[in-house]
């Protein structure tokens, strides 16, 4: 058979999706945090220096001791810093432009990363008060909070 050179449009392409349906086990402290989310409560951990970390880690960031003291914090707080997402991607929390923000919840001393549905970047600023918008159906996942919204709108 003779050699057959293909033109550009004869070269075939096809969609190819690779999926990993992972589950990850969480430790006792993160397990407490996710259990809280399912019950519409946000939990943090008291660290060795007395400050409250939220979301909590399993170990103290300074002493590396196990953290065991669970502290309930509020489901509202203030924006520490933020970054505006102009073109949200498929698996991101919102399908329209939003901010990813570090939010210091009332009663916590560290930032929780979540989406803020603020409408426009002009509405965002450090210190902005925001409140969690909970989903009706929760499973113990960070997405049990759909996003945060400016407090006056909540």
């Amino acid at each position: 058979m003779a050699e057959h050179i293909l033109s550009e449009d004869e070269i075939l392409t096809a969609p190819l999706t690779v999926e990993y349906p992972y589950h990850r086990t969480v430790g006792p402290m993160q397990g407490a945090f996710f259990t809280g989310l399912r019950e519409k409560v946000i939990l943090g951990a008291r660290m060795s220096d007395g400050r409250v970390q939220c979301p909590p880690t399993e170990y103290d960031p300074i002493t590396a001791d196990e953290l065991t003291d669970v502290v309930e914090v509020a489901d509202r707080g203030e924006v520490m810093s933020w970054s505006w997402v102009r073109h949200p991607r498929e698996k991101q929390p919102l399908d329209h432009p939003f901010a990813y923000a570090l939010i210091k919840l009332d009663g916590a001393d560290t930032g929780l990363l979540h989406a803020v549905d603020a409408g426009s970047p002009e509405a965002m600023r450090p210190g902005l008060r925001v409140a969690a918008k909970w989903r009706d159906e929760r499973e113990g996942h960070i997405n049990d909070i759909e996003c945060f919204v400016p407090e006056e709108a909540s």
Partner: protein
Amino acid sequence: MTIELPERLQGVERVRAIRTPSELHYTYGAGVATSRFLHGLEQGKILGEKCPVTGRVYVPPRGASPEVGLPTTEQVEVSDKGTLCTFCIVNVPFYGQEMEIPYVSGNILLDGSDLPIMHLLQEADVTKVRMGMRVEAVWEEQHRPTLETVKYFRPMDAPDADYETYREYV
């Protein structure tokens, strides 16, 4: 260590694991040689390509001879009949599985080719599947540019191939 939850959460079932699925979306470009092969399948032909030095025929072709690194340019139609070189009887279910178990997956050396392809074997008694068994392709009625257009291979009513003809591939 057990961590105590606030009073209002006592007695609720603890979360022990979270979902962390991940998805990667690609567009696979088949490239020139594999596109030639896939267009061949669309016409009901299995096309290999020949190494210009050794003369060995590769199916599916990748555009170059893995032995000498030179482009393969000559296309060769190979048979849709061949020899089962090695096989695996799958008895264990797994995620993403589409076939009913048990099923047989095999390396099939098509007549005229020098590299076996992996494909399914069906219409076969799994207890009688063996190396050297002669098999033939069962095609979809409407051919498509994918190797899945060969639905599966099935045993032929023919004597087994001589071991020497496939010993290189076991």
